[in-house]
């Protein structure tokens, strides 16, 4: 279109317009976003990484300065850090497994026809809209034997010996936030997988049906291969997101009892928020970032290998 407009005004004008369209005009639209992201996220990120190598404690303002790898040495011998690392693993694996399979089940159900579908769809997606702090509080209350039914039900089923609050039991406490996280996260998987399911061409199923394929064969030979890319990307993004997700645990247990639900992200937050030890908090954060990068790199390599075959 520019060619039409510019043909009359000669070559210089055309080159100026080209320059304008490729170098200037897009950035006019982008600059507010870029400036804000740079100032509020990238600059603090750089500062945050530098904090990991400094002593920055608001409670001890006169002992600040560069300390090299001292924070990381402290981290290496910090028993709470290794405990939090193990907990992060179980928290992430537990949450993502249940979220994914229940979400996939829901997406498959919603992809069929049934009475009242629109209403059901609206209702089952609702937990996703519930603010996280409220999900956390609600589930903490549900697990409270005074006002919540869950301990009584669990005791009636014989899972608990008596109705007590599992959030106060170091061996069981992690199941509380995981349950809340599963409840909160099913809709995400259901929405993304449902969208992917709906984009599978219907003719494939018709052809398979004519050829006499069983529903199970159709699921494994058509549905799963089509879903695979979406599954890979959502599981990867979700794993990173859940590993970083501190709200639920912070509100439900605060990392307790006896650090049994402390994951790395809640450890970062409590170190910064309660102890105001920004240097140490940043060192934990850098460690978490490193672990996530390794995880992402492994996944990308695996994906490349699998795609080749």
């Amino acid at each position, binding site marked *: 279109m520019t060619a039409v407009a510019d043909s009359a005004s000669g070559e210089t004008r055309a080159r100026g317009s080209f320059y304008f369209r490729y170098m200037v005009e*897009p950035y006019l639209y982008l600059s507010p976003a870029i400036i804000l992201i740079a100032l509020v996220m990238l600059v*603090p990120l750089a*500062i945050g990484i530098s904090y990991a190598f400094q002593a920055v404690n608001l409670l001890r303002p006169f002992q600040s300065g560069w300390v090299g790898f001292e924070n990381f040495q402290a981290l290496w011998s910090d028993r709470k850090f290794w405990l939090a690392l193990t907990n992060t693993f179980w928290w992430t694996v537990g949450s993502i497994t249940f979220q994914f399979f229940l979400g996939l089940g829901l997406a498959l159900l919603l992809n069929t026809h049934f009475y009242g579908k629109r209403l059901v*769809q609206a209702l089952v997606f609702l937990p996703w809209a519930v603010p996280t702090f409220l999900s956390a509080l609600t589930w903490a209350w549900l697990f409270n034997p005074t006002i919540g039914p869950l301990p009584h039900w669990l005791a009636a089923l014989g899972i608990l010996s008596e109705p007590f609050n599992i959030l106060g039991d170091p061996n069981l406490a992690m199941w509380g936030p995981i349950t809340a996280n599963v409840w909160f996260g099913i809709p995400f998987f259901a929405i993304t997988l449902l969208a992917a399911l709906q*984009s599978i061409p219907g003719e494939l199923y018709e052809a398979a049906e004519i050829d006499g394929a069983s529903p199970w064969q*159709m699921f494994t030979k058509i549905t799963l291969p089509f879903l695979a890319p979406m599954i890979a990307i959502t599981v990867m993004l979700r794993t990173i997101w859940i590993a970083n997700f501190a709200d639920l645990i912070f509100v439900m247990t605060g990392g307790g009892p006896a650090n049994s639900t402390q994951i790395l992200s809640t450890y970062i937050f409590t170190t910064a928020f309660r102890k105001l030890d920004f240097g140490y908090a940043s060192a934990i954060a850098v460690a978490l970032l490193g672990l996530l990068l390794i995880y992402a790199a492994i996944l990308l390599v695996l994906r490349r290998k699998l795609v080749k075959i």
Partner: protein
Amino acid sequence: MRTLRQSSPLMVTGKYLALAFYVIFALFPLYWLAKIAITPDKLIFTEGTALFPSRFTFENFQTVLLQTDFLAYFRNSLVVSVGTAAITTCIAAAAGYAFSRFDFYGKRLVIAVMLITQMFPLLMIIAPIYKIVAALGLLNSLTSLIIVYTAFNIPFATFLMQSFFDGIPKDLEEAGMIDGCTRFEALRKIILPLTLPGLGATLGFIFTAAWSELLFALMLINSNETMTFPVGLLTFVSKFSVDWGQMMAAGVLALVPSCLFFIFIQRYLVQGLTSGAVKG
């Protein structure tokens, strides 16, 4: 359809049972929240764990609204969420438009940076943000929250807006530009009206996200006057941890705005994602 082909009564029953399980699982915690909120205080300990209250009352809501600071928290959250949603949507619409319509030098870099901001632990910058905000003298101000939330939400909102712009044919604004509009006029008069549903959905997403944010608000706000709803509720819970009815009444109130927005956008959600997926 394909799945109903040779569906036995057993399969159909199983399907409806499974659906019932999902619906009950999704709704039960919210039902419980509402149930305790309307149970009279006297009955909470005798029938706290009964499925239905034998009597109900709206006293708890009254107390929460009239005798506590929750109305102020509510107002603060509303200011922060509406401000964040409005500013983010404007900035993201511009950026999403640039991604959708221009091929330009550095495009891949900008997209990569935006993706990276979605990956790293946000808690990593909570300490630097605190120090910067403190140095600017903006602690305990809603403005600082709006600025921080806006930046956090821009990348996602930009990609969302880009997908909406991608769904509008380029010919429309090109036709307008041939007729003598500048690109910006074409954007304003032709494209924006068409993408109103997309703008609405983006507003809804960002509003909900800002409404739920807790950790940065906890860090940056500690005066009672500027507390947002999550911070206020958490403070209330740790101070008066036995006023179950009132806490849950406050919880129900916190739920209202997000649920309204959600009902408004939820049908649109799968459609939007699907059309994006079809186009690849």
